[in-house]
């Protein structure tokens, strides 16, 4: 079902969405030492991934400089009901460092491609972070007590002179300032020849998979020196290579099922019970090409940049260059819903090919109830589509248009014809301001938007509950 193209909102006012800004926004550059100016912006600060954990209490971001910053939602306080549930920095650490591959004479970027949280099993939190080649398991623990009253050591930790010890005492735990400690627990290296584009934790909580351009590996979280190759699409002759893997994800409930997408716009659902090497798909989801829209760029714009299962596990969401599509797992022939993100770019494809924007990989996200889908676009715009009402809205993540407590104003791109006052024309869109990474809180109407090196967190105070 086609929805009216993005520039024209079907509802004249989107106040019903009423997205109010939460703690307005965070500049991505987080001071590593105190006193560092927040205005510092370096290419290393570009946010490369955003991910909520399973409860939504924590939000992790990764950047081009290999750092991970975790935000925590403050518990709602009765004293200040208006500042309830806002996110503050919880922890910052350096996850990956740049490396040099001596055999290939190539540098391995430290940019964090993906972060995935593990389901919480004890007091500690764990997450997987990956760059192009290496995946790391990090454990995040809190320390808010420390023992005092040692017998053999003094307050500074120096050994006491035994002659001064006249009696024995039992050390007691005293409260201290909260300290968040992060330590690398596992390093999964040397599993990939090509660049890792996605990781996904299995619902069994014991295994996870990592996918690069041509292969997908299955790992056990406790074993770092072995992985199983479950998909391999590398042709015997590299000159026959015409298709690569672009994204992959485990099914949220069925631990044997996973999906991977390709640069030709197809999705393959695989069952690990069928064979050790899942080169033969169980289901192939592919939409036949529309012959009336065929051009030299058809294949490029059909390349799927992201695939996400719905929370229910019944549907899949895919993003290609101009659209987002909802697929029913039971129907392989075509998507059940197609939404135009920025169809006005269809006539600009040649220019976008020239400046490489056509290769931008946008992500997509479901809300907690699978009723709304969201994806980013250019000019710091992001789009939301309500699957039930068929309404859509374009919003902007920018400092200028966002003040605390303000309601986000819907934006509109005009493609000629009647132009309203605040409309943006297609030709004045800023293609360097792209929103590639977005995330939606698993239960509430809270979204995280990464706009280059700025992180925006928006909360819908009016409609906190999912509907």
């Amino acid at each position, binding site marked *: 079902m086609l929805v009216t193209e993005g520039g024209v909102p079907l509802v004249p006012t989107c106040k019903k969405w009423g997205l109010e800004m939460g703690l307005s926004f965070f500049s991505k550059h987080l001071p590593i030492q105190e006193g560092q100016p927040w205005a510092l912006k370096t290419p290393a600060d570009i946010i490369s991934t955003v991910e909520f954990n399973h409860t939504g209490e924590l939000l992790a971001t990764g950047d081009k400089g290999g750092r991970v910053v975790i935000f925590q939602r403050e518990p709602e306080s009765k004293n200040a009901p208006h500042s309830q549930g806002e996110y503050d920095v919880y922890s910052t650490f350096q996850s990956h460092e740049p490396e040099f591959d001596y*055999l*290939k*004479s*190539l*540098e*391995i*970027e430290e940019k964090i491609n993906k972060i995935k949280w593990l389901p919480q099993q004890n007091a500690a939190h764990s997450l997987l972070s990956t760059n*192009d080649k290496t995946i790391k398991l990090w454990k995040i623990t809190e320390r808010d007590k420390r023992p005092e009253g040692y017998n053999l050591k003094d307050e500074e930790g120096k050994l006491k002179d035994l002659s001064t010890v006249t009696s024995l005492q039992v050390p007691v735990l005293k409260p201290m300032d909260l300290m968040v400690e992060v330590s690398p627990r596992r390093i999964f290296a*040397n*599993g990939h*020849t*090509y*660049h890792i584009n996605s990781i996904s934790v299995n619902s069994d909580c014991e295994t996870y998979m990592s996918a690069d*351009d*041509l292969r997908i*590996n299955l*790992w056990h979280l406790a074993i770092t*020196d*072995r*992985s*199983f*190759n479950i998909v391999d699409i*590398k042709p015997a002759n*590299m*000159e026959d*290579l*015409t*298709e*690569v893997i*672009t994204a992959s994800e485990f099914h949220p409930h069925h631990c044997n099922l996973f999906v991977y997408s390709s*640069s030709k716009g197809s999705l393959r659902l695989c069952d690990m019970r069928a064979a050790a090497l899942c080169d033969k798909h169980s289901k192939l989801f592919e939409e036949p090409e529309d*012959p*009336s*829209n*065929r*051009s*030299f*760029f058809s*294949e*490029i714009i059909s*390349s799927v940049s992201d695939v996400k299962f719905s929370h229910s596990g019944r549907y899949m969401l895919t993003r290609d260059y101009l659209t987002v599509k909802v697929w029913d797992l039971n129907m392989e022939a075509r998507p059940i819903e197609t939404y135009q993100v920025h169809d006005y770019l*269809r*006539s*600009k*494809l*040649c*220019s976008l*090919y*020239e*400046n*490489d924007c056509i*290769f931008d990989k946008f992500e997509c996200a479901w809300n907690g109830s699978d009723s709304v889908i969201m994806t980013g676009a250019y000019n710091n715009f992001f789009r939301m589509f309500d699957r039930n009402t068929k309404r859509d809205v374009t919003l902007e993540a920018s400092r200028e248009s966002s003040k605390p407590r303000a309601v986000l104003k819907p934006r509109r791109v005009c*493609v*000629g014809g009647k132009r309203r006052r605040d409309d943006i024309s*297609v*030709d004045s869109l800023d293609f360097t301001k792209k929103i590639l990474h977005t995330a939606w809180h698993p239960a509430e109407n809270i979204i995280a938007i990464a706009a280059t090196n700025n992180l925006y967190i928006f909360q819908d105070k009016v409609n906190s509950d999912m509907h």
Partner: protein
Amino acid sequence: MFARGLKRKCVGHEEDVEGALAGLKTVSSYSLQRQSLLDMSLVKLQLCHMLVEPNLCRSVLIANTVRQIQEEMTQDGTWRAVAPQAAGRAPLDRLVSTEILCRAAWEQEGACPAPGLGDGHTQGPVSDLCPVTSAQAPRHPQSSVWEMDGPRENRGSFHKSLDQIFETLETKNPSCMEELFSDVDSPYYDLDTVLTGMMGGARPGPCEGLEGLAPATPGPSSSCKSDLGELDHVVEILVET
């Protein structure tokens, strides 16, 4: 703007543009733009080989586009080597990107919404284009090739490199192809041949890796199907060996 063969009566600056394009009236504007797209794609493929870390997805998509164009041109019967003089004369004009290419091949109706957008973009990439120089340029994996030359020199070397590409296409000589790309070390793909089937664990010893690397300059008699890398094979497809 490029309506099907009909000369439209326009006023103002459009008339000037039409006058300038009068010389191209005989050449189908579609094939011109298709050629422009082909040039652009070949340059992109070469550029991504120069970058430190080639993005495989992007390379594959561009290579597929080149293949598509080549197939269509073969069907049209328009696939022929371009004379070097033509390449040298107007490579900049060729990079004019228009929106016609964005539509279906047979659908040439309507005016381009913003031809200015295409023109505006022409200058940018051309002047920014790094020296896509011949294979003799030394490899600097760390330094960015964008900083190597000034804009004027960029144009010169861009002319030269396109010339080389077209020259080799014309002669259809595999060995010329190899000379063009011979120094462009492609350890990325060579090593992969060695490391095929590497599944998290077994790592080849240093000697195996070195043996797997192809020599930098293969002999003139060796065929293009040596382990030179994907780019060579893409060009080989164009050459139709």
